[in-house]
């Protein structure tokens, strides 16, 4: 009986130690797992926050290209053109499960960017007054191939010359009237063929023979067709056709993943143009009243602030909103500004 009791006692002790030990161990394992998860989220949030400030800095430094090494993280960009409101369009960029809103920022890029670097570039968009700065994002794993013929040479050269200012971008140019169209498969993440050609004139079969078949959902190349000048024109994506006004918007189309992504950012820009134009219109009207009612010695200045100018500003804003951009109004304002300076009158912009 004595032996049995002591055996039970020893066994109870061990069971007690095991249970308590397991509880303590599971508590610390739980804490460690929770802490690891939190830290991972914190790191991802840190990366995304730093990228956000990098994008903001890049955006406010027009005509400056930057190459930045980043940790291995897949960046995803979304922008929904169909859900735009008075605030902007719902759009985000995310990495490691953390996302940041870019609701009002015009940001042109592919939907996904893999790799350990990011190329930021920004251009100012004037119509003719400054409306916004556009931010373009890509990396060295995305290749841009400019293909053009003699008929579309002018726009291709203008776009090519502007893009050449960004030395970090992987770019090639082919004039199909002077050289044979050929591509080398460099195993890039994505190859964007920018065709300054008539719509559909580039043989997809030929491109496939160089770059390989495209898998549905994991396309590694595409073709966009551009028809127009440096001032205005159309861009044809596989999912639709869009318009552009000015080289910064054309660049936006070249950097955008598809027509929806581009249209979404164009809508954000149109919203911004509405605010800016509103300010310029109010200022112009105020200056017009000032010269006609108060400073009548300089009544002649009101000529450069009159109805024609005010209409031009209104038409620019409404044109951007409706997608029917008339570049004549831009030219009108440019000329008006030049004449106003000659007469020592305040500029409209």
């Amino acid at each position, binding site marked *: 009986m004595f032996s049995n*009791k002591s055996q039970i006692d020893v066994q109870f002790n061990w069971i007690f130690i095991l249970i308590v030990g397991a509880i303590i161990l599971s508590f610390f394992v739980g804490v460690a797992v929770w802490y690891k998860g939190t830290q991972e989220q914190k790191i991802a949030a840190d990366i995304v926050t730093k990228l956000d400030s990098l994008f903001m800095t890049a955006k*406010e430094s027009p005509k400056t290209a930057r190459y930045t090494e980043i940790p291995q993280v897949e960046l995803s960009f979304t922008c929904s053109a169909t859900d735009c409101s008075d605030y902007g369009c719902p759009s985000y960029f995310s990495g490691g499960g953390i996302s940041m809103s870019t609701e009002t920022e015009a940001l042109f890029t592919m939907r996904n960017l893999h790799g350990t670097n990011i190329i930021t570039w920004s251009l100012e968009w004037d119509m003719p*007054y*400054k409306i916004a700065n556009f931010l373009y994002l890509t990396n060295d794993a995305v290749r841009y191939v400019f293909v053009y013929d003699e008929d579309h040479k002018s726009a291709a050269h203008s776009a090519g010359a502007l893009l050449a200012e960004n030395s970090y971008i992987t770019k090639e140019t082919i004039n199909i009237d002077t050289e044979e169209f050929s591509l080398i498969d460099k195993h890039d993440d994505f190859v964007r063929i920018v065709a300054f050609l008539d719509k559909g004139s580039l043989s997809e079969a030929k491109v496939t023979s160089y770059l390989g078949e495209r898998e549905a959902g994991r396309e590694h190349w595409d073709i966009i067709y551009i028809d127009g000048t440096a001032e205005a024109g159309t861009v044809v994506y596989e999912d639709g056709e869009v318009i552009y006004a000015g080289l910064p918007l054309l660049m936006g189309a070249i950097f955008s993943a598809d027509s929806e992504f581009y249209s979404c950012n164009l809508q954000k820009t149109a919203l911004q143009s509405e605010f800016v134009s*509103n300010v310029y219109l*109010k200022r112009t009207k*105020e200056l017009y009243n000032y010269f006609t009612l108060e400073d009548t010695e300089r009544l002649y200045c009101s000529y450069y602030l009159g109805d024609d100018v005010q209409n031009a500003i209104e038409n620019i804003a409404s044109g951007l909103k409706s997608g029917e951009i008339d570049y004549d109004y831009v030219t009108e304002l440019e000329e008006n500004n030049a004449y106003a300076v000659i007469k020592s009158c305040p500029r409209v912009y």
Partner: protein
Amino acid sequence: MRMQLLKAAQECTRCLMKKAQLKTGETIIVLIIFFILLAGGMVFYAKIQTYTSVKKVEEVQELNAIAIEQRIRHMSEISCTIDGSVIFDCYDIMKVEALQETIEDYKSYYGTVIFPNSRVVITSVYPDNEEVVLYDYGYSDESVAVEPFRTPVTLYNPRDDTYNFGYITIGVYS
């Protein structure tokens, strides 16, 4: 003799049981102390976290003020321009006045996206003394603000083509 042996065995069993009970008691006391220490640590950690989060809120408010200042600095609406080229840290006073009206038309956009929870005042100090409240979100008495953020600027008046010195004050509230 037999009785004596039995008694001794019983005594020994009791003594062993007492020893085992003592051991279990010891373990329980150690555990209780351990959990008391753990709870103390957790309370201490929570207190530190509360203090840190208060500091963090202040830091976020300061960062928001800087972000708003950055936004204003690059706002296409109010910057001085010469044929579209922006002059940095210069604001066209007529554009500022026009923006005041525009903000009234698009209050929700400017209040949410551009100047969240803030009061932005543009003050001219030389040669004219003037103050323009660009945006005021209408803070209540309970609102807490960090030290307002000030930045010097030049203010251009296109009516008579003159420049004033001034500063922008940005207050962020929570």
